[in-house]
Structures are given as structure tokens and as C-alpha cells.
């Protein structure tokens, strides 16, 4: 455990102001503005709806055109730093609802996961809280026979902050557990001196921390699934770049659009 990072200036005065709280207060204000305007998980939109965000940007407009030739629709998620886990969890469960057999395999996998986390050293008392909520959501949607009704319930639960955030936390914990379990492999993906456990405590488990390639690898690996990330940025050519995780899995369950700093869900 270490002290929070502080700016140098506070060492020069005998009565430093409580800068940590000032920073946190400002962050809270920005987050509040975002959460007031963008739903946690939005409705299905056409790919062309992206155009309005880039009306004067020819590179992006060309790429949106390319994107719309490959994908039919997009579902936006709130840019709160949890977007990967929220988009991934939503899109994967939504996909599983089309195949009862796959869903029940997933259900069994998650059901067993709490004991694995506790065995890895996660505190049982708090892990249980998130696990119970995750299982409750899976049960609730599993009890609905009609797939499209089940998807509606999934959508509602993912837009209820309490449920939605607990789903994200549990996915973060599962991912952290996986990275730590395979720490020799994942240590090659971490820059600097940090151990995999440090990285997990600082970048994976805390809410609102943005996800990178390594988070996606861990999440896919622990839940035995695959994601295709479609990159769209201002670089290079006129087409979007697609990348499968894990690399050798050519038929992903989840398609995500990545624009610098943010993930949304894509549909074929």
C-alpha cells in the first residue's frame, strides 16, 4: 500500500489544501454531466448515426462508410471508463440468449467462478456481494422463456445503475483473477515495474478505469469467448481495422467498436 500521488507544490507549504478532494470533486462533476445525458446502454442505432458526430471530418466519414458496409447497427454505451466491461457483458449475454445450451454452459461457468476467486485470495465477504447480483441477473433473464422478452429484461437491468455496476464489478474481478492466475504470460503485456497483481489492483479492479487490450484478453479467456474489436481512429487509410481477441478465434461472440478511449457494441 502506498500514499496517493500528490503534486509537488503541496510540499512547500505548511498547510497544504486537501487537493485530493478537490480533484475528486471535479471528477464527480464531469461524471455527473455524462451520466445525466447518456444512458448506460443505449438503444440500437444505425451505423450512419455516427456521421453527425464527425460532420466535418473526412477521414472519419470515410471510415464510417466502410464500417456501415460491414455492420448493420451500433449500440452506444456510457463513456464512464467502464464501457468495455459493460459493452462486453451486455453483448455477450445478449448473444447467449439466442442459444439456451450456450447460455446454460455460461451459467455453470459463472456459478463456479466465485470459489475460484476466493481460492485466488479475493475476499469472500465482498466478492459474494457482486457474485450474488451477477447470478441474480442471470437467473432473472433465464427464467424468461421468450428470447426477445429476456433481452428486454437484460436491457432494463443493464440500465439500472445498481445492477449494471455490480455486473461490471464482477466482470472486473473475474478478469483480474484470470490475469493473476496466468501472471507469467500476462506480465509481458505490462509496461514498467508493476507486477500483474499490482496492475490488477490499480487498473482492472477499480471501477471507472479504462480497459486496454490486456483486459479484453483476460475477460475473453476467463469466460471462454472471443471479441472482435473494430478500430476507428484518424490514422492512415479509409477503412476500419479489425482485430480478433484471442487472435486465433475467427468467429467472435461479441463485436465492439473502438474509438480512442471508448467502446460501443456493433451488430452484423
Amino acid at each position, binding site marked *: *500500500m*502506498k*500514499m*496517493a*500521488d*500528490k503534486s509537488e507544490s*503541496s*510540499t*512547500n*507549504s*505548511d*498547510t*497544504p489544501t*486537501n487537493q*485530493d*478532494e478537490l480533484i*475528486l470533486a471535479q471528477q464527480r462533476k464531469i461524471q455527473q454531466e455524462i451520466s445525466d445525458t447518456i444512458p448506460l446502454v443505449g438503444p440500437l442505432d444505425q451505423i450512419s448515426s455516427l456521421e453527425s458526430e464527425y460532420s466535418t471530418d473526412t477521414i472519419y466519414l470515410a471510415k464510417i462508410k466502410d464500417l456501415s458496409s460491414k455492420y448493420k447497427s451500433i449500440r452506444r454505451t456510457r463513456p464512464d471508463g467502464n464501457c468495455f466491461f459493460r459493452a462486453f457483458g451486455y453483448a455477450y449475454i445478449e448473444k447467449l440468449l439466442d442459444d439456451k445450451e450456450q447460455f446454460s454452459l455460461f451459467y455453470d461457468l459463472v456459478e463456479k467462478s466465485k470459489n475460484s476467486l476466493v481460492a485466488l485470495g*479475493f*475476499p469472500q*465477504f*465482498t*466478492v459474494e*456481494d*457482486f457474485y450474488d*447480483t451477477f447470478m441474480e441477473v442471470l437467473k432473472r433473464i433465464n427464467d424468461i422463456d421468450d428470447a426477445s422478452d429476456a433481452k428486454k429484461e437484460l436491457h432494463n437491468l443493464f440500465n439500472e445503475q*445498481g445492477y449494471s*455496476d*455490480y455486473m461490471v*464489478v464482477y466482470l*472486473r*474481478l473475474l478478469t483480474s483473477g484470470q490475469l493473476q492466475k496466468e501472471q507469467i504470460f500476462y506480465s509481458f503485456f505490462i509496461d514498467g515495474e508493476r507486477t500483474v497483481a499490482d496492475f490488477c*489492483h*490499480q487498473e482492472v*479492479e*477499480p*471501477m*471507472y478505469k479504462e480497459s486496454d487490450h490486456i483486459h479484453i484478453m483476460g475477460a475473453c479467456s476467463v469466460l471462454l469467448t472471443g471479441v472482435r474489436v473494430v478500430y476507428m481512429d484518424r490514422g492512415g487509410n479509409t477503412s476500419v481495422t479489425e482485430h480478433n481477441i484471442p487472435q486465433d478465434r475467427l468467429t467472435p461472440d461479441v463485436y465492439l467498436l473502438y474509438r480512442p478511449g471508448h467502446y460501443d457494441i456493433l451488430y452484423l
Partner: protein
Amino acid sequence: MSTPARRRLMRDFKRLQEDPPTGVSGAPTDNNIMIWNAVIFGPHDTPFEDGTFKLTIEFTEEYPNKPPTVRFVSHMFHPNVYADGGICLDILQNRWSPTYDVSAILTSIQSLLSDPNPNSPANSMAAQLYKENRREYEKRVKACVEQSFID
């Protein structure tokens, strides 16, 4: 009304009662589960020994996804405690994890009393004395310990 934060705080309280860590205690205030009072006893073999330091913990509805605000009510002389009682501790700021509960918070603050970090000071006088004049540091801390009996 039961919300995830309130439900979780009831669980935290129950656990703190059933399995209390040594040297810390805490409970919600009478009419508001979102505001807790807590006490940390100064750890043995430190200048804080014998002190009973009071704190308040304020939770938001975003708990446990976001950390609570923890503040010493008792006057403290410690490198990582601000004049207003605010605490400079990574797990209460940018390294918070939803897997921490009230027990974990209080035991972390308790170990901060034993192991100050003078390189990240919230009270530069305390940090300087801790590094350069340990005797004077301990004298000032002991004054806080005595003050804590009266508070």
C-alpha cells in the same frame, strides 16, 4: 428505501460486529446508515499507542463502486492527515477497489498510523519532523494521544 449501497452497508456493519478486526470499531449513526462513526485505537509500539481516535465515514449511493469520505474528528498529528482531518491514502482515492469494505478501510488507516509516508505529505510539518527529528515528532503525536482522551 433499500439501495445497493445501503444493502451493502448493512452487510459491512454485520461483518464488523461478527468479526471485528483488532483495534478498530465502527457503526452507522442512529438515523443515517450513510454516515458512520468509527474509532481507531493507536497501534502498539507506535507513538499513537493508547490513543482513541475518532473518525467519520461518509458514504454515497455509489458505494462500494466509489470510496467513502473518511475524516479524523480527533485532532491528529500525522504526515498523511490534513488539518481538516482528511486522509491522504491511496485506497481512499485512486486505488479504491469495490472489494474493500469498512473493515478493510479502518485497518488500512490503522496501519497508516504505524507506517506514515513522509514523501506524500498532507501535513508537511509532521512529515519533516518524522524524517528529521523523530523525538519532536513523537512528542507532538503524544500530545494528540492525550488530547484524544478528552475529545
